[in-house]
């Protein structure tokens, strides 16, 4: 049984049919990526998993437990943390306060301290800027902070929504390196990306989403070699 299973999930915004029966599996220890064009439904998929949007039909299970019955604020207690699209940090709070908030769901002081050390080693930039207001960080630093904030909940599954969006090419590379590092430390990652090129390099497997439907699923290598994917998402002729 996979860690996370979406089975024939349909989701709506009013009467906009955003997800048309998608099924996704994420196994423990993997990096799975969900690629697709703008508006394909990638963010919607993550919102449905994290409880911000309830699927109309279909099931979502995490480690065998039905997720759809839980409100969004309970999902984090199950071990799933979301790094939302467009950063998602408390802009007026300092770096350290943001990280502190990230551990809101926990009460184990030692564990929190250990995770704080861990994210600070992962992102030395944040260590230097402990007392800085999050809103005044650069885009790349805010992305680091959002990821670090999510890691402070000590999730077993990390959902990341376009972490490379709007970053300079140099930074993009380091974002993906960090994702690999986080994964190697034992966190499973579901990564949503428009930057299919990079995503398919770090991922184990991938799904291609098109207007709310999964049109392809394969190993990352399989997708990289797929002609249609090359044409549509990797910009190769």
């Amino acid at each position, binding site marked *: 049984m996979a860690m996370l299973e979406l089975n024939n999930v349909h989701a709506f915004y009013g009467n906009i049919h955003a997800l048309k029966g998608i099924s996704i599996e994420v196994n423990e220890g993997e990096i799975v990526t969900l690629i697709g064009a703008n508006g394909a439904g990638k963010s919607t998929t993550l919102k449905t998993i994290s409880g911000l949007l309830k699927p109309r039909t279909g099931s979502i299970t995490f480690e065998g437990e039905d997720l759809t019955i839980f409100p969004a604020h309970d999902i*984090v207690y199950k071990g799933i943390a979301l790094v939302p699209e467009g950063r*998602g*940090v408390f802009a007026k709070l300092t770096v350290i306060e943001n990280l502190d908030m990230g551990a809101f769901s926990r009460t184990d002081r030692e564990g929190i301290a250990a995770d704080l050390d861990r994210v600070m080693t992962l992102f030395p930039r944040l260590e230097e800027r402990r007392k800085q207001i999050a809103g005044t960080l650069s885009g790349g630093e805010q992305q680091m902070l959002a990821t670090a904030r999510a890691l402070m*909940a000590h999730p077993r599954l990390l959902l990341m929504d376009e972490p490379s969006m709007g970053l300079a090419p140099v930074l993009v590379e380091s974002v993906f390196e960090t994702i690999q590092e986080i994964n190697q430390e034992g966190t499973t990652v579901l990564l949503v990306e428009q930057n299919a090129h990079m995503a398919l390099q770090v991922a184990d497997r991938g799904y291609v989403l098109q207007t709310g439907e999964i049109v392809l699923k394969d190993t990352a290598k399989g997708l990289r070699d797929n002609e249609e994917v090359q044409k549509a998402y990797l910009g190769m002729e």
Partner: protein
Amino acid sequence: MVKSWDIDLRIPLRFGLIAGLIALMESVIGIVTLSWERSLVANVVTMGQVLLFAPAIVIASMAAKQANQDKKLVSLLYGLVTGFLTAIPLIILIAMATAFDLRQFMPNVSPALIELLTFGRSPVAGSLILLGVTSLMGLLAAAFDFLPKFIQRPLLMGLIVTLTIGIFSEILSNRLRDLVSVDFSRAIFEGKALKTIIAAGLFAFVAVLNFLWNQFQEPIRGAFGSLPPRLTRVLRVLVILVLIALGLLIPTIAGTYLSEVINNVGIFVLMGLGLNIVVGFAGLLDLGYVAFFAIGAYSMAVFTTEGPLGVSNMSFWAAIPFCIVIAAFAGIVLGVPVLRMRGDYLAIVTLGFGEIIRILALSDLLKPYIGGAQGVLKIPKPTIINFFAVIRDFFVNLFRGLPLPKAPFETIDLIKPEQFYYIVLAGCALAWFVSWRLGESRLGRQWMAVREDEDVAEAVGIKLVSTKLLAFAVGAAFSGLSGAFFASKLTSIFPHSFKLDISINVLCLIIIGGIGSLPGVVVGSIILVGMPELLREFKEYRLLMYGILLVVMMLARPEGFIPSAVKRREMLTADEQMQASAETESAAGD
């Protein structure tokens, strides 16, 4: 950075016209005439003079600062021209008033006003004198800026303190008469003003004190910092004890009238602390906050009244918990429908809720229970056991071998404002303590997260529903307690005491004080509730001052008088950003 090496006459022109228009407006609405004879310092300066000439002085100084720093002549010129121009609108007014009778349109443009604007001379001679006076003031204001900062600041401080004491001379002299003696009061005050010599002494004293403080602040702070921590802790406890003692002594020092004013301030402090939780901590804009004040007041009223509407003969003390619980419950009832709303929508809905409560109180529907427009009368004042007498009797009887005092003990009614003060003080202290503890608690963190970003808050595992409802409930509870005090203090309440302006007043006072800051609530209440009360002699003009204060405050200090830590940081970073961008700009210019 503006680099104006040349003289730009548009600057003093603009500033001068603004100053002139302010002075003109003050004259036309009549406040200058009203306060012309009202001395602040006997035979030296009156309130009217301050009001009339303050624009010239303050704005000329602002204009002078626009000149490049090392161009002293330019800044003098700016000051002079600004001062000169300030008089122009007034002179036009003098000319028009001499030619026509303006009182049809502007009832306050009286011969008395013209006479004082022309210093009792002919229109032409008077206008010239006025022109000379404002020009000179502009010039002096510009020159004042050449003084080094360490001299400027003490002089300003001395001036402000002396004039403020001058304004409140009447109240202060009455208190001194009661507390010390008539002769002492007469030695310091003359009529409604400070005596000249005393004012000079006070000015010098404050200036010197401020000078010394500025000079030796650092070493003193350093010395305190290097004291052993145990000693600093002892000192801190001592300071707190002194503050408590002072708090307990206030009614004795303040007397009946001032105690009444302080009680009104306290009732607003209590409400302010509650709204501060809702708006300041949790970021939920509530414009119907008066509703909970009304609910608390009506609960106290019907539970305790001796009139026909009473439902029980509860004492003040027994009713208090009910008032708090009922108001908190009402907070939750309002909270549920507005949970999904944000910002402006929330403000509108809560506004409606506030009005609904007032209209319900007025309605025929509830008239049999809460009296409609006739309100609820005969609400008793609180009664407490006379501990002092009981303890005294205990010891006296102990020595004499008489039976010791037993329940029911002797009681006293807290009728006088000086007595009621302690109830208000206790309520405020409790609310302060609860706010402070909650602010630091886990719930406080939840409120902060919800205020900053609801979506991220939810993502880190915060329950929006209970977090928001708790903010509404706690805020409403404080307001309900405040309303309960209010009802008992007035002994009768009517629906028209619970209008929208109370909600707005409370919101303004927490903004002026510094949103999210507890000391800010107190400062805001003193300024917006206490001051207008003390300045009653200025009639409706005090509302104008109130409005001006709000505008000036929001322009000059948008973070409030005593900003909370988060707000202060935000402002600091904004400043730093400006500084940083200015630096890059100048670097790019090189």
